[in-house]
């Protein structure tokens, strides 16, 4: 208790710095993955993608990032058990942020496809199980999180398979694909708008002073999605059925219709990514802040201060603007086999899955979900060839990240404990 009172301000400052650094890292690197399908399929220019990402990552993080944040903050650890030694939670969460941040830095340097989510969850479980005791870990919750890592790519793959199959049946194979595209694409826009707004209305917005019942949420989401579909329909009217150059690739009318759709799914994807991944940075920070501000009391009921979400949201945006756009530029110049009609299916499926996970408070990996979604399109015979070697590499990095994140966080935990007593 005395330690908290003595060093409280310092703990918060350190927490803010490492939390911001982590968010910055997510923006610098991870966002590019979330936007990769849009930029890679040439549906969006680099500038458009950065703009969309800035606005919707921020919105997603701020409006719908609360649930996952609370899981990271107090779901993995049984905070009740350590109420006598709250400083351990502060050390641990700081150590977890440091561990995950450094591991991400190393991995980015070497180009390993690691997940921010897996690093932070590994780090938290690591310091808690080894540094404090195996009992403090809420193993049931951890099991459900790990299960969601398997389920989310599968779910996204299934959805993208169905989405692309429907596109194939309704549009690509119809007698007049261009007219069919114009007719059916607004429906997909509706779907994107509905999923995102539903999760936001149901789970977000509480901390901005708005609260909706389930039926109100459905009603508002329907209205919102209809507006989106209407705007989309208007945008589609300007498109004619001819082959034109767009962002350095040649597209026919059908693909250009899908490129408009991809602007919407890119927004959904950025929103989904912001809502899920911001927690990786600010979940631990929120834990530190709540312990210090309540004067050493581990209050599991206290609400998440909005400024903590703001730190995460702005960290992501700053990281994106400082470094992330470069990674996106690389993607935008690489040759890709992903056309808008395929990219959208993967992106919408991934965004839907991630945003639902965000709503249920499950921290999942956006990149892995996208990988699952791309495989789904491939299974629907939408993509010429998929490199399974890369999938293996991603799975391997998944398995390696957990013990490394845990190990580093244990190291930092004992260092901090030693330093502050």
């Amino acid at each position: 208790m005395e330690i908290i009172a003595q060093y409280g301000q310092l703990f918060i400052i350190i927490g803010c710095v490492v939390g911001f650094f982590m968010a910055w890292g997510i923006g610098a690197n991870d966002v590019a993955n979330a936007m990769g399908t849009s930029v890679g399929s040439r549906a969006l220019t680099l500038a458009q993608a950065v703009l969309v990402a800035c606005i919707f990552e921020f919105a997603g993080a701020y409006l719908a990032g609360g649930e996952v944040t609370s899981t990271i903050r107090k779901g993995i650890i049984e905070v009740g058990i350590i109420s006598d030694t709250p400083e351990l939670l502060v050390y641990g969460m700081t150590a977890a942020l440091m561990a995950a941040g450094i591991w991400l830095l190393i991995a980015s340097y070497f180009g390993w496809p690691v997940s921010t989510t897996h690093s932070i969850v590994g780090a938290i479980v690591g310091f808690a199980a080894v540094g404090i005791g195996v009992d403090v870990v809420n193993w049931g919750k951890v099991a459900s999180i790990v299960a969601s890592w398997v389920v989310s790519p599968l779910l996204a793959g299934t959805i993208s398979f169905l989405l692309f199959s429907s596109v194939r049946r309704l549009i690509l194979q119809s007698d007049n694909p261009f007219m069919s595209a114009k007719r059916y694409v607004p429906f997909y826009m509706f779907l994107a708008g509905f999923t995102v707004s539903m999760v936001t209305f149901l789970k977000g917005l509480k901390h901005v002073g708005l609260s909706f019942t389930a039926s109100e949420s459905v009603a508002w989401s329907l209205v919102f999605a209809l507006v989106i579909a209407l705007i989309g329909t208007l945008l589609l009217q300007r498109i004619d059925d001819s082959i034109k150059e767009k962002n350095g690739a040649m597209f026919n009318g059908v693909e250009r219709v899908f490129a408009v759709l991809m602007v919407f799914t890119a927004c959904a994807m950025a929103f989904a990514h912001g809502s899920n991944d911001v927690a990786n940075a600010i979940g631990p920070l929120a834990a530190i802040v709540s312990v210090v501000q309540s004067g050493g009391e581990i209050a599991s009921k206290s609400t998440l201060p909005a400024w903590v979400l703001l730190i995460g949201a702005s960290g992501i945006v700053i990281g994106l603007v400082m470094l992330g756009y470069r990674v996106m530029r690389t993607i935008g110049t690489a040759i890709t086999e992903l056309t808008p009609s395929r990219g959208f299916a993967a992106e919408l499926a991934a965004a839907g899955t991630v945003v639902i996970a965000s709503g249920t408070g499950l921290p999942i990996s956006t990149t892995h979900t996208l990988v699952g979604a791309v495989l789904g399109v491939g299974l629907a015979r939408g993509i010429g060839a998929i490199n399974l070697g890369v999938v293996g590499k991603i799975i391997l990095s998944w398995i390696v990240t957990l013990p490394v994140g845990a190990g580093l966080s244990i190291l930092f935990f004992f260092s901090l404990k030693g330093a502050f007593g």
Partner: protein
Amino acid sequence: MNNESFLGLLAESPFAGLQEHMSEGDDAVSKLGDFITAVTEDDWRTAAECREQIVELENRADDIKNNIRNNLPKSLFMSVSREDLLGLVMTMDEIPNAAKDISGIMIGRKMAIPKQVKDQFISCSKAAIKAANQASEAVRKVDDMQKSGFGSNDAAALSDLVAHLEQIERENDELEIALRQELFGCEKEYDPIDMMFLYDIINKIGSLADISQTVGHLLVRLVSR
């Protein structure tokens, strides 16, 4: 987290290479048509030029073939069977090879076509060339099909193309039989060894049509799943 790794998931589609290869083969065979016309007109300079171009096209087709083959590791997950695809490429590669072989033997031996069978020889080779052109058309169709996700409409269009290809091959067969009969009637007037080689060339031209037909069948097998 690394972005190259994530988009590295999408391997280069093998279909573009397929079409590229077939287009070289198609060009080589069309050049063979010019070559044969030149030979029958006793214009050896044009024939030599055509021959050079055929060799070059065949080389290019070989490079593309190797490129396709080398970029098809077992870890590749494709919308078509890997074995079917490799088999198709190998068969397709026999088309420019045949063009090179035929032109090589003819130019090496300064082969003269007996005037009694000249017209028949030309129409028989034209039918074989047409078969190869048609096979190339079918390959293009499959590339389109990949773009629309292998629809049933496309499958129907492809089987039409292949049916037409079979018809061309049958025509070529009939022309070849007639040509052989005609040649049988006058072969005694010419040098036996020359005639031996001429029969060999007729065989090879016939097999060009056969290969083209096989390409069509392999394409149907490739997309049917």
